[in-house]
């Protein structure tokens, strides 16, 4: 306030007239009006008027990488909507006939993206070898397990390699026909002279000598072979032995007869996983058991045997015999030390079978003995589409399908009288006129059967006198399978198909859409809640702020993974619950940012003015303060979206991902197991998620720089 004393009265000096020349009288006529008839305009701005949004947009457009990212992002979002609509392939049900097709864009044989798979060093089954005399002829006709790979589908010339040293033990049982067993303590110690030679598929009797400290022999069998071998096997394992378990045996010779003692049956103690993990923990006093059960302390010839058989998913049932020969007077500690050196974990790892007849094997396993076996290997390029969809002989073709083709007019079965020779009798099965069977293909374009059938293609019950067979009829037909599955031409899956035969193109973009929906929903909820929380906390300040801050403090400090795990375990992982769980801590960032903005603006004069004019708290918050901070808040919070997508994928890897719907994270974590065999299943979802994250981050940063130029460069 200005007061009276602020003003001082200054006396003006008296005006003296003498020095000032006498003023001339100025009359109204002296003035002329210059713009009497013209209208006066305000001068236009030299620059164009602009708004904040336009200005921000201009700055955003300058940032080339952000613009590119925006286009990529837009394309991805568009594809995630459009692709599942356009692509008619079914991804809800499984299609067992269409699994693991490679990505195909170009025709097979192009060499790139052509639906082929390259197989290298597939062991050749010599027992399937046809009569051939020369080495060249043999190689020409040998073919790895004909049940799995057909010659027809191979598109490159076979290349054979003759390996005498087989690194992988798995080849021995099936394909190794000649070879050696080697004795030794360490792989490095193995020398050429110590071989025990064998020439058949039989595992040789392992002769043990005093100086062969450690020996292990591995063999692979299938389940029946193990069952069959139970009685005959030298080791004479108990007949009630269950596959999938681990047990430790000790065998020794008493004179010429073989005696055996079961030392530990891990099956009765643990499941196989924990037995492998904790065999060292259960301190089994082996020497003591041996002594009490045999009454002897020294042995001439003896060995430990571990029998382990895993019958899990994709695992070849294997029978591992780890044998240990030791000198007649080993001390108790030495025996235990040698036992402890045997590694169960290693053995299972060495023989874990992955798909496609390949064995995942790494020589880190510290194997104590190896086989040297001679086997032939084959490398070739294989057309997966031809193998799955090409022409093949179906030995039990459905008669119902034949009748359907006839009904569609694609083929016909006619007797001279004009009736159909095959009929469907609902209760009795089928009816086949054996004597008058003729078959004709009417529409070769559409009919899946490639060659007209003859009566020899049928297996049927004894016909009656008039040549009519009634009952169960089986047909053998050469079928073009893509036509059978209802395709008009050989299908082409751009990104291949997965283990359930789902089209990866549709599946990935469907997953992308789910991920985006989850992220957007989370963003909206977190944003709304965080803004409300932050506004209240920041606007009122004081004790309200203190309490609210403490709550966010504690909530924000709970490790994210821990919180998510607990919430999902309690609530389940349906989409709404999943989003709720993500929102539990997601809003904290927004809240603290909003709070800062409110602290910044709440003391401004215009807020004070508005309050003086009687505006309510709600009005001040919503109309005056919040809009000012909105730009900063929203640009920073856009980055919640990639964060949520990332978190979602992380949680999926924990096995707690979304259920019943597929998101990018679920697809990635589900397909992780196929990395070694079908890497394309991971390649495309990985590329999509990486692209999404990169473009989202670039877009978010560009947006922030545009809205808030002062923050530029902070990244």
């Amino acid at each position, binding site marked *: 306030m200005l007061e009276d004393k602020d003003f001082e009265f200054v006396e003006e000096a008296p005006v003296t007239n003498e020095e000032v020349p006498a003023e001339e009288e100025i009359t109204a006529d002296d003035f002329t009006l210059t713009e009497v008839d013209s209208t006066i305009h305000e001068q236009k701005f030299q620059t164009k008027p602009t708004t904040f949004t336009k200005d921000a947009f201009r700055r955003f457009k300058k940032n080339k*990488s952000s613009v590119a990212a925006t286009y990529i992002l837009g394309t991805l979002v568009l594809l995630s909507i459009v692709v599942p609509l356009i692509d008619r392939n079914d991804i809800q049900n499984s299609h067992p006939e269409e699994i693991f097709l490679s990505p195909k864009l170009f025709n097979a044989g192009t060499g790139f993206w052509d639906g082929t798979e390259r197989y290298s060093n597939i062991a050749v089954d010599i027992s399937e070898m046809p009569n051939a005399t020369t080495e060249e002829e043999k190689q020409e006709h040998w073919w790895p397990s004909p049940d799995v790979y057909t010659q027809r589908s191979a598109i490159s010339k076979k290349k054979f390699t003759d390996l005498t040293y087989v690194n992988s033990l798995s080849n021995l049982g099936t394909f190794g026909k000649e070879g050696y067993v080697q004795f030794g303590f360490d792989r490095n110690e193995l020398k050429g002279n110590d071989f025990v030679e064998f020439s058949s598929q039989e595992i040789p009797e392992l002769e043990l000598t005093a100086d062969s400290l450690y020996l292990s022999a591995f063999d692979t069998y299938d389940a029946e072979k193990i069952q069959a071998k139970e009685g005959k096997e030298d080791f004479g394992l108990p007949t009630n032995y269950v596959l999938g378990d681990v047990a430790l045996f000790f065998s020794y010779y008493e004179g010429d007869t073989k005696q055996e003692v079961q030392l530990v049956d891990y099956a*009765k103690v643990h*499941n196989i996983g*924990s037995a492998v*993990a*904790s065999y060292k*923990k259960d301190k089994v006093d082996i020497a003591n058991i041996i002594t009490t059960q045999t009454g002897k302390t020294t042995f001439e010839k003896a060995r430990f045997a571990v029998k382990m058989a895993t019958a899990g998913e994709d695992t070849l049932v294997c029978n591992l015999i780890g044998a240990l020969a030791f000198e007649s007077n080993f001390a108790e500690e030495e025996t235990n030390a040698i036992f402890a*050196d045997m*590694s169960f*974990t*290693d053995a299972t*790892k060495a023989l874990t079978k992955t798909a496609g007849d390949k064995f*995942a094997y*790494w*020589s*880190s*396993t*510290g194997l104590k003995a190896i086989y040297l076996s001679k086997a032939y290997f084959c490398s070739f390029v294989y057309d997966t589409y031809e193998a799955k969809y090409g022409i093949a002989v179906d030995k039990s073709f459905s008669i119902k399908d034949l009748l359907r083709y006839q009904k569609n007019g694609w083929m016909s079965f006619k007797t001279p009288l004009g009736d159909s020779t095959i009929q469907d009798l609902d209760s009795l099965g089928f009816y086949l006129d054996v004597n008058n069977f003729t078959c004709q293909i009417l529409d070769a374009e559409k009919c899946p059967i490639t060659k007209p059938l003859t009566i020899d293609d049928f297996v049927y019950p004894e016909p009656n006198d008039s040549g009519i067979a009634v009952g169960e009829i089986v047909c053998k037909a050469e079928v073009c399978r893509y036509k059978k599955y209802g395709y008009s031409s050989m299908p082409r899956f751009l990104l291949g198909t997965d283990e359930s035969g789902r089209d990866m193109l549709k599946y990935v973009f469907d997953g992308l859409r789910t991920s985006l929906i989850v992220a957007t929903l989370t963003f909206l909820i977190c944003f709304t809640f965080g803004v409300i929380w932050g506004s209240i906390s920041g606007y009122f300040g004081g004790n309200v702020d203190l309490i609210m801050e403490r709550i966010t*403090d*504690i909530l924000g*400090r*709970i*490790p994210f*993974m*821990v919180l998510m*795990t*607990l919430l999902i*375990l*309690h609530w389940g992982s349906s989409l709404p619950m999943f989003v709720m769980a993500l929102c539990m801590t997601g809003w904290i960032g927004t809240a603290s940012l909003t709070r800062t903005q409110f602290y910044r603006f709440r003391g401004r004069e215009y807020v004070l003015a508005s309050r003086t004019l009687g505006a309510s708290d709600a009005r001040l918050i919503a109309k005056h303060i919040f809009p000012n901070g909105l730009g900063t808040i929203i640009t920073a919070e856009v980055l919640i979206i*990639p964060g949520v997508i*990332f978190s979602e*994928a*992380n949680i999926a*890897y*924990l*096995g*707690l991902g979304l259920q019943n719907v597929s998101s990018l994270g679920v697809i*990635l974590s589900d397909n*992780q197991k196929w*990395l*070694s065999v079908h*890497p394309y299943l*991971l390649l495309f979802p*990985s590329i999509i*998620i*990486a692209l999404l*994250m*990169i473009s*989202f*981050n*670039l877009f978010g940063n560009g947006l922030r720089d545009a809205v808030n130029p002062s923050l530029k*460069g*902070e*990244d």
Partner: protein
Amino acid sequence: MLRYSLKRLLLAFVTAFIILTLTFILVKALPVTLKISTSAGERMGFYDSQVALGYFSVIVKPETEHYQPTMKIIESFVVDKKEYFYYPRPILEQYFSWLGNIFTKWDWGTSTSLELNASAIRLIGRRLPVSMSINIIVVLVSVPLGILLGIYAGLKKNTWIDHTISTLIMIFVSIPGFVVITFLIFFFSYQTGWLPPSWPSSTAPLGTRILGYIIPVLALSFGSICGYGRGVRAELCEVMSSEYLLLARTKGLTKNQAIIRHALRNAFVPILPSILAEFIGILGGSIVLERLYGIPGVGNIYFEALNNTPRDYNVLMVDMAIFTIIGLLAGILFDLSYGFIDPRIRMGAKK
């Protein structure tokens, strides 16, 4: 400063306490699952250990007198004509005996499924060295590399070198770690066979075990290197355009002198705290990366405890406690180190 530090520590302690309380109650509120396949004697042993820890109660009655169940009996056994009824105690009671065991005996419970009746804290203690060894290498690799990269890019601002480094940093910061490790395994293990596709066992030869470190260290370092690179570059760019650097040059310092004595020192103020906080993070493990590479560390045991049937809640609790405490300590160190590094910043001082 000391007062502020103590205050922060106390606050962290309270926070940890609240978080662990909530976690315990949430974990215990999940239905109890028990292993069925084990023998009756072992199950009884397990229940007895639970009784000793205060999670369960037991009522012993002569066989003739049948117990009227008011509590949710989990299982009963008949031994020597006596009937033993085991039932879980109310969650709050369990909570207080859990707390009591920790404070009085430092007993965090026993494992219920991973290694039956083994001490949970010892179980995790065995896993800790693996995670720590990897993390230490990651810090040793990523901090110097990231800083050098950032300095280089910052000094060559707006040249093609800077643009290349910045773009690469942007890309690698965005690509999730699980994608990186997937591609590393695919390329270096399955395609070329140079490195083991999963963590080698402890009995593997030394060479293989050393090779086994490469993929997880690479996968964990990428993000870290890029984070530091980006931070250092941004700070350096800001400092380089500051007036005091111009003054330093004007008073006759060479460019290198100005950069080393003035620019770098100031640029590191916001970077050092995060480096220090990362050293605390050595104790933790990345759950997903450890799982993908099969590393038997503290992160992987979290996954194992969670996905084992039955779930191993005690191990889970200890693991969660580790992650919580690491997070809190890292936060404190982060805030406090600002005060040590930059004398202008006085933590906890009144304005």
